[in-house]
């Protein structure tokens, strides 16, 4: 997943507000959290920004992957409390002596980990919402106080 | 040139109760830079319920002056995103909220950090800077 700064560096940085956000930085945050898409930035669609636009699109492509699994983390809302890390039944099953009892994950099989104060999701294919016996699980969403995780 | 009729209208004042709380995003900003823009933005604000704001004729984003015997500050008004019955406004604990806290503790040494009465009115002034709060009166 790209960082906000990577996206911001590719934007026109004119703060023209045409996208509805007050700054290009805010637009970069919105891009990252999938609240906006590149088409909503009129200047970047102009010919001279073609290279930047292509780069932005490729950076945001893994999103297609995230959409396939549907899980989105909004890092700007996350407090890093780790409730999802501990409440996720996959994390409990895959790391019963670490995440399962409230501690830091002790292996790489968990879905949620907290890096620099914000949660990061990986191993998303392990999520109970996918595969043959999928269930509509809300275990990571219910314990989140800020709505930082959603499935789309 | 238009006439600013606002200045001919009486600026109504209302009595409000304020309670303070903690916010992790503000605490993060404090750890990083207590003189920074982020800390100011997350501290120099008061949250009110939609109904309270409507009753007083305020709208989100207005600058408001909060005044009592202990001090006077200008902060930004925001609509509480929480479910609120109204009647109480909220501020994150900070030097801004502390400017309104009484030092009179009945000799017990614990001020009423969470039970503040103040008057609120629209303000033309800019939001109080942290530099202003360091000027010891």
């Amino acid at each position: 997943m790209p960082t906000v700064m990577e996206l911001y560096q590719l934007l026109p940085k004119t703060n023209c507000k045409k996208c509805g956000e007050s700054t290009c930085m805010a637009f970069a945050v919105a891009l990252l959290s999938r609240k906006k898409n590149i088409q909503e930035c009129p200047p970047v669609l102009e010919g001279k920004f073609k290279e930047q636009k292509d780069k932005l699109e490729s950076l945001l492509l893994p999103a297609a992957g995230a959409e396939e699994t549907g899980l989105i983390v909004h890092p700007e809302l996350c407090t890093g409390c780790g409730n999802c890390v501990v409440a996720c039944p996959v994390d409990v099953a895959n790391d019963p002596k670490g995440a399962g009892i409230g501690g830091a994950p002790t292996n790489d099989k968990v879905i949620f980990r907290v890096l620099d104060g914000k949660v990061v999701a990986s191993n998303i294919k392990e999520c109970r919402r996918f595969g043959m016996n999928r269930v509509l699980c809300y275990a990571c969403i219910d314990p989140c106080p800020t709505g930082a995780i959603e499935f789309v | 040139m238009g006439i600013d009729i606002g200045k001919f209208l009486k600026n109504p004042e209302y009595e409000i109760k304020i309670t303070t709380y903690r916010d992790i995003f503000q605490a993060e900003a404090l750890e990083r830079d207590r003189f920074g823009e982020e800390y100011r933005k997350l501290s120099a604000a008061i949250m009110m319920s939609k109904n309270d704001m409507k009753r007083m004729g305020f709208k989100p984003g207005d600058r408001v002056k909060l005044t009592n015997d202990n001090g006077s500050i200008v902060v930004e008004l925001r609509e509480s995103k929480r479910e609120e019955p109204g009647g109480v406004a909220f501020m994150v604990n900070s030097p801004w909220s502390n400017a309104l806290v009484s030092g009179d503790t009945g000799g017990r040494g614990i001020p009423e950090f969470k039970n503040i009465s103040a008057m609120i009115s629209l303000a033309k002034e800019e939001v109080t800077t942290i530099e202003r709060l360091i000027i010891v009166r």
Partner: protein
Amino acid sequence: MVTCTCTGCALLCEDIDVIIENNRVKEVKNACRRGAARIRGCVNRLEPSVNKKQADIDTSIKKAAEILKNARSPMLFGWGNSTCEAQVKGIELAKRLNAIIDDNSSFCQGLLIERILKKKFRTCSLEDIRNRADVLIYWGSDAQDSQPRHLSRFSYFPRGEHRQHGYEEDRTAAVIDVRESSTAKICKGHFYRIPTGGDRELILALMDALSGKVPKYDKRVLELAGIMKKAECGAIFAGIGLTYSIKDDPDILVALADKLPNFNIMPMVGHYNMRGFNENLFKETGFVNRIRFEGRPVHNDGYAVVEALRQKSIDALLVIGSDPLSSLPGSIVSHLADIPVICIDPCVTLTSRIAAVTIPCAVSGVESGGSAVRMDGRVVELPGIIENNHLSDQEIMTGLMEAL
């Protein structure tokens, strides 16, 4: 990668992995948003100074010692962000100077911690909570924002020895608060909203309900009393919302606890080692704060930092790891303009800006080691993880003693 203890709050999380590159923090794993910011450090490091002019650290320490020596009634204040080792030295320094010593608990959780240390409340460890607790009451406490990993590491979400089925089945969590806090959002079904200052009234109603009397109160109190009565192992996490509200009669909470034989009381502490200071001073004097040494320790509410400043009864102030100009009522800090202030902190603070002497120190837990007391009383080691040239709080205290 190294493992460190987070000093962002009094949970003292010991499972923080930090990647260091070129002696700087590159990545912080497992810490919450606030903890990660604490470990990464502030942008404005404090520089040593005397009378607002840059000085070397030895000159600053010497000048500080001189100020304290010449003062008739000096106060040493702060301590919640210092290691136990520095606190013990600080208490020694106060004795040596016949000074007043007080800490943030004086206007925070001191009232409840004192009662814990005097064994007026039943209490337990956070591990006991994880392994056994089935009813959790967050009262005037928004743990999610103040002790962000409390619910995930210990109280609500983890599986414990006797709580193996997950939180929905095994635990009931309720929030009593004036505001729909983040913690209240998580405990949706069991949020009890009270008016500001309404805690005492609810305590009395709960005591009635627990004794089988009909309380004159909203009937939801019966539901709450029912949950509490059924607890095998309950805990009341008492936040400063509750403490401030019952500050005139804190023993009312002792009376409620007496009616709840299966419950533990745990004051929710913010500063990482506030409880450490309370325990260290208690061992020495029998009190948790507000002490003046006059050959023997004398406890008086007039020695509370708030009262001392309001009454203008001190003539020099040493501040360590605290920012009174930021955290005390604006109306009483004017006295700080009239007396010499010595500020010891890793970072520039509001107080350091007006201080006569500033002495920079290492960030404890990151740049210096030692030990600290977690909010439940367990002693936790803090390994320092980054090499640096800053003096630790403890070394500065030793320097002050030597300069005297």
